[in-house]
C-alpha cells in the first residue's frame, strides 16, 4: 500500500472516529491510543526494520514525561519546549548508551536495554526531592488551549488532546513511512536480513543500528511527554518495566514489519483492556490468552495477517 494511502486512511480514521463516540470519555481513550501508537511506531523502526530488540524503551518515555514535568517547574521552561528538550535528551542518551550496547545481539541486547529502563525508573523513584518519588508529580498546563480560547475557540480537554495526539501521530507515521521507503530503511532491513551481507555492500551496520535506536528513543520520549501533558500528572510507572513490555507487545502483536501494524497493535492493546474490564477478575487471563492465540496463528502480527487474508479473498 502506498505511503499516501496509508496516511490518508490513518487521518480519515482519526477524523471520523469521534462521530461514533457516545461520550467524552472516548476521546481520552483515543488520545491514549495515539500516544501509545507513537512510541510503538518508533519500536517498529527498531524491531521491525533494524531487527534489534529493546526492553527498556519506557525509560525514554520516562525521560520525555519527566522533562515535561520538571522543565516548567525547575527551569521555567515552557512545556512545549520541555517536550523538545526531553526528545533531545532522549536522543543524546540513546546515542551514548546505544554505541556500546548495540554491539550485543539477541537476548544480551534485551537484557542490556532492560537494565537501562530499570535504571531510569529507579532514578525517578528515588529522587523524591525532584520527582516526588513513587507518588509522582503534577505537570504544568501546555497553555495552547487557553490561547485557543482567547482566540474564541472553546475546546474541551478530551477533544483537544485527541486532536493534538492525532496530529502528532500522523506526523510520526509520515516520518516513519518516509524512512521505510528510503535508503536508510532499506539499509536497516538489509542488516536485519543478514549483517554480514549488509556490510559487504557497504552498509555501516553499527551506524544504522544506532540510527534506529536513537529515532525510536525520540518517538518514545515524545509519547511520554504527550502522556504527561494530557494527564497533567505523572508517576514513575511511565518508565517502568511493564510499560516497556507493553510497548514491545503492541509492536509485535500488530505486526512489527509495518508502520500501520504498529498503530493497530497499539489500538488493540489499549482498547482491549477497557473492553475486558467487564470480565473483572478474568481480564488479564483473557488478554493473555488473546495474545498467545494471535502469536501462534499470526506470527507476523495481526495487520499483515489480515491484509494477506483480504488480498487472498480479493483474488
Amino acid at each position, binding site marked *: 500500500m502506498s505511503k499516501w494511502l496509508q496516511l490518508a486512511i490513518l487521518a480519515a480514521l482519526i477524523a471520523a472516529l469521534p462521530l461514533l463516540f457516545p461520550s467524552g470519555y472516548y476521546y481520552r481513550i483515543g488520545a491514549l491510543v495515539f500516544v501509545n501508537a507513537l512510541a510503538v511506531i518508533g519500536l517498529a523502526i527498531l524491531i521491525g526494520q533494524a531487527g534489534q530488540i529493546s526492553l527498556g524503551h519506557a525509560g525514554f518515555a520516562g525521560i520525555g514525561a519527566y522533562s515535561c514535568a520538571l522543565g516548567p517547574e525547575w527551569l521555567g521552561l515552557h512545556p512545549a519546549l520541555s517536550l523538545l528538550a526531553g526528545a533531545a535528551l532522549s536522543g543524546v542518551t540513546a546515542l551514548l548508551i546505544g554505541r556500546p550496547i548495540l554491539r550485543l545481539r539477541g537476548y544480551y541486547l534485551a537484557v542490556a536495554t532492560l537494565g537501562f529502563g530499570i535504571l531510569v525508573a529507579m532514578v525517578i523513584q528515588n529522587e523524591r526531592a525532584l520527582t516526588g518519588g513513587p507518588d509522582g508529580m503534577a505537570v504544568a498546563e501546555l497553555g495552547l488551549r487557553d490561547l485557543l480560547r482567547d482566540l474564541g475557540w472553546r475546546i474541551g480537554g478530551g477533544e483537544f488532546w485527541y486532536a493534538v495526539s492525532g496530529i502528532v501521530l500522523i506526523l510520526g507515521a509520515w516520518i516513519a513511512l518516509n524512512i521505510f521507503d*528510503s*535508503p536508510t530503511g532499506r539499509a536497516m532491513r538489509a542488516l*536485519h536480513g543478514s549483517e554480514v551481507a*549488509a556490510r*559487504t*555492500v557497504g552498509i*555501516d551496520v553499527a551506524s544504522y543500528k544506532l540510527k534506529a535506536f536513537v529515532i525510536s528513543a525520540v518517538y518514545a520520549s515524545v509519547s511520554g511527554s504527550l502522556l504527561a501533558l494530557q494527564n497533567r500528572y505523572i508517576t514513575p510507572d511511565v518508565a517502568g518495566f511493564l510499560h516497556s513490555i507493553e510497548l514491545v507487545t503492541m509492536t509485535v502483536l500488530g505486526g512489527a514489519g509495518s508502520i500501520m501494524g504498529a498503530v493497530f497493535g497499539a489500538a488493540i492493546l489499549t482498547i482491549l483492556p477497557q473492553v475486558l474490564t467487564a470480565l473483572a477478575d478474568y481480564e488479564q487471563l483473557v488478554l493473555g490468552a488473546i495474545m498467545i492465540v494471535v502469536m501462534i496463528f499470526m506470527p507476523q502480527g495481526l495487520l499483515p495477517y489480515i491484509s494477506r487474508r483480504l488480498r487472498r479473498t480479493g483474488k
Partner: protein
Amino acid sequence: MSLLEIKDLGISFGGLKAVDGVGFEVSEREIVSVIGPNGAGKTTLFNMISGVYRPQRGSVHLDGQEVTGTEPHHLAALGLSRTFQNLQIFQEMSVLDNAVAGFHLRERGSILADMLSLPSVHRRARVARDGAMALLDRVGLADLANEEAGNLSYGRLKRLEIARALAVDPRILLLDEPAAGCNAVETEEIDALIAELAREGVAILLVEHDMKLVMKISNHVIVLDRGRKIAEGPPAEVSRNPEVIAAYLGAEEEDDAHADG
C-alpha cells in the same frame, strides 16, 4: 601492478591453523581460482580478505593501499565485493530491493533527507532502481523483480547474490562457490557471466568445487590444503601436480562430501 596482493596471511582458531601463511596476487581482468579439499581454509581466506575476519598475521593490499583488517563496508567503498558460499540473502526483501541494497554507497544521503522524503531521495532511489533492474536483467532475474527473495530457488538466489555484489561496482569480486547447487545450465550461465565480467576489467577471485568450471575459466589456480598453499599456476599445470592430486585423493578417502570449504 596487481590489484589485490595477499601476503603471508594467517589465522588460527583455538590452536588450529585455519590459514597459514598464504600469499598471491590478482590483477585486473584476471580470474584466479582457489581450490582445495574441504576444510582447506578457502572460505576462511575469503573472510579475511573481505574483512569479515581480522587476520592474525600477514597483509592485504588493494590497489597498493594496505587494507588488512579493514571493515567490509569500507572495503566495499574501495571496490571490493563478494558473494557467500552459504547464501546471505535479505530474505524478506523483494528481489529488486536486494539488488537496490547493493547500491547503498551511491544511494545513501543524509538521514534528515530520508526522514523528510526530500526530492533528492527520490532522485537517488530512481537511479539505484534503474541500475538494479539492469543488473537483474543481466543475471536473468528481471521478471522476478517484485517477488519476495525468500521464494526463489537456490540457483536463482546465487545469481541474485552476484547481481547484488555487482551493484557495488566492484573492481575486484570475490565469488565463494557461485555454482554450488546449480544445475548444468545454470552453471554454464554463471560461467559465461564470470568470463564476461573479467573481460570488462573486473578482477575475479573464485572459490569453486566444480573443477570443470575452474579449469575452463581460470587464468591462475591456487591450491590450498590444511591452510597452506601447496601449489599454484595455470590450470593445466596445477591439475598435473602430484601433490595436488594426492591432497584431493587423500581428502576423498576421508570424506567425499563437498560441502564446506
